[in-house]
């Protein structure tokens, strides 16, 4: 089962969980599956047009994800990275 790794700022909807195993054939499916399990997560990563917020980046097994429709395999790890920090 693919796993979605949740960054600390976005663990409110996941009740502190940093790793959520989900069923899904694509990156988008997996993120939607996290939203189904943890309502509120989707609004943190998706903008109104259904695409990623620009301050969110995704990596699949360490490689940048360019397309949300990227197919994923059973053992894949999708990492959500969010901008934090102040200056």
């Amino acid at each position, binding site marked *: 089962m693919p796993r979605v790794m949740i960054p600390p700022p976005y*663990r409110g909807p996941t009740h502190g969980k940093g790793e959520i195993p989900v069923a899904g054939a694509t990156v988008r499916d997996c993120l939607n599956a996290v939203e189904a399990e943890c309502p509120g997560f989707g609004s943190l990563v998706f903008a109104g047009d259904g695409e990623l917020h620009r*301050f969110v980046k995704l990596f699949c097994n360490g490689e940048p994800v360019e397309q949300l429709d990227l197919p994923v395999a059973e053992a894949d790890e999708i990492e959500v990275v969010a901008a*934090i920090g*102040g200056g």
Partner: protein
Amino acid sequence: MSTNGSNGASGDRLIRVDMTRGTIVVEPFPSGWKLLGGRALSARILLEECDPTCDPLGPDNVLILAPGTLAGTAAPTSGRISIGAKSPLTNGIKEANAGGNPGQDLNKLGYRVVIVKGQPADADKRWGLEVSADEVKLVPADEHAGKWNYALCEDLTKIYSKKASFITIGPAGELRLKGASVACTDQDSRHPARHAARGGLGAVMGSKGLKYVAIDPGRSRARKPADAKGFAQLCKKYTRDYLDGPQMFKTGTSSVVPVAQMLNTFPTRNRVSGQSPHAESLDGKRIVESFETRGGGMHNCLTGCVVKCSNIVHDAQGHYKTSALEFETITMLGANCDIGEMDDVADLDRLCDEVGLDTIEMGAAIAVYMDAGKMEFGDAEGAKRLLKEIAEGTELGKMIGNGAAEVGKQTHHHRVPVVKGQAIPAWDPRPLKATGVTYATSPMGADHTAGLIVNPGMPEDQWAQASQEAQLINAVCDSSGFCQFMTPTLDDIRTFYGTFLGEEITREQIADLGWQSLLDEWEFNRRAGYTEADDVLPACMKEDPIGPAKLVFDVKPEIIAQAKLRMEPREELFSTKATG
């Protein structure tokens, strides 16, 4: 008044400046301090050489200029400098650090720290400190008295070499105001746009009559590592890894605005709300869009930086306005004062840099002033007038320039968001409880760079440990010279130290280094009169709810106390990235 600085030419040295006598002594840098730099070095010297009960603006305070341990090496984004002293704002120990080139220029010359003591008998005299490979000397600088930072640096660039970098204060420092910053110049434009802003350290520099420090690196080169080949490979790999990663600050910290708005940590109208109606207009995206039509862009503030998070902001006519317009500034001078136009915030940022002021403290002070009914929220022109009055030294200007606590005191206003006298930064402790634990326990007062934890869902039993770990990691980072936005881990830093020094630095050693820095700082504060009863957040954070969940800062005192008791290091301590 001068020395040839030849003592230990091949080894590291330190500079002692006595402003009472006008003398300078250059000494060998103690070998026992080889791992110490930046914040940790400042803490050690202050604990050993500064009376914690002294008047922060008197002759017994000690001003420290300490580059990070790796500054001046080829390690990427590692050239930051720490400024330290007893703070006139908190009356406790203070370290604030900045980018720009002075840190690496000092270290390239072999000067690991400048220690400034005493005070000239004539408070109206101004001095400059010149540091080069040939000489360290004090020079009269009366002609620069009262100059704003940009004009001062423009004049200094005409006097000193093209390579020289500068550390300066503006009028706020000369007036010894508690919100005064210390400015460092950018690597490219040599604008005074990098500020060690927090805690009123500019006032300490002003109290010593020191208007500027000019550092001419001459032909000095990057510091040589013991393992040159290994160090070069390490730098290359670390740079590549960073560039292959998400580079979250590629468009500046201002890109964080929408995240903060979502998380109810975009304080508005003196923090009565965590969300602003101006989130769209204050989004850093507007700055990036302006590059197309107005010019400006992203750049690196210090030589060798690969993060390049600094924006250069132009006005509508395409002229340079300011750099860098950061998330904290946009929040505190914008949303927190209900000012919604980015151009106005850019003007306010430039004024703060010119007069030499902490944008966080000024945003908080003006918001308290507005909240007390003395000025309408959203009055951008009024806010600009206030900052100009600070430079003019009017009574009103002095009140604002002395920070939020002073404004609260003089206006008798009840909502004053400060900890240990220092304004709470944008990141709000009500949704971010573990960050609140940092604000309560950090020796620095409320300071997000001391240990920021952006994790609203974190369970209560993790707050103390998360805060302690973040404080320890950031203490090490701020001692190393690395920028927190390079996000180094303790393992990264100890690997760099080990390769540079040619000896293994263990996990235990690096963790002890950070912890000792915190212990030194807490001990200084204890001697200054602080007790555990001071490790609290103000009433407004406990009583005024924020966000739809109506969150208040309700962390139990025993959890706050735990953050100062050393815990067994977890594996994650060494792989967690610094964040600030």
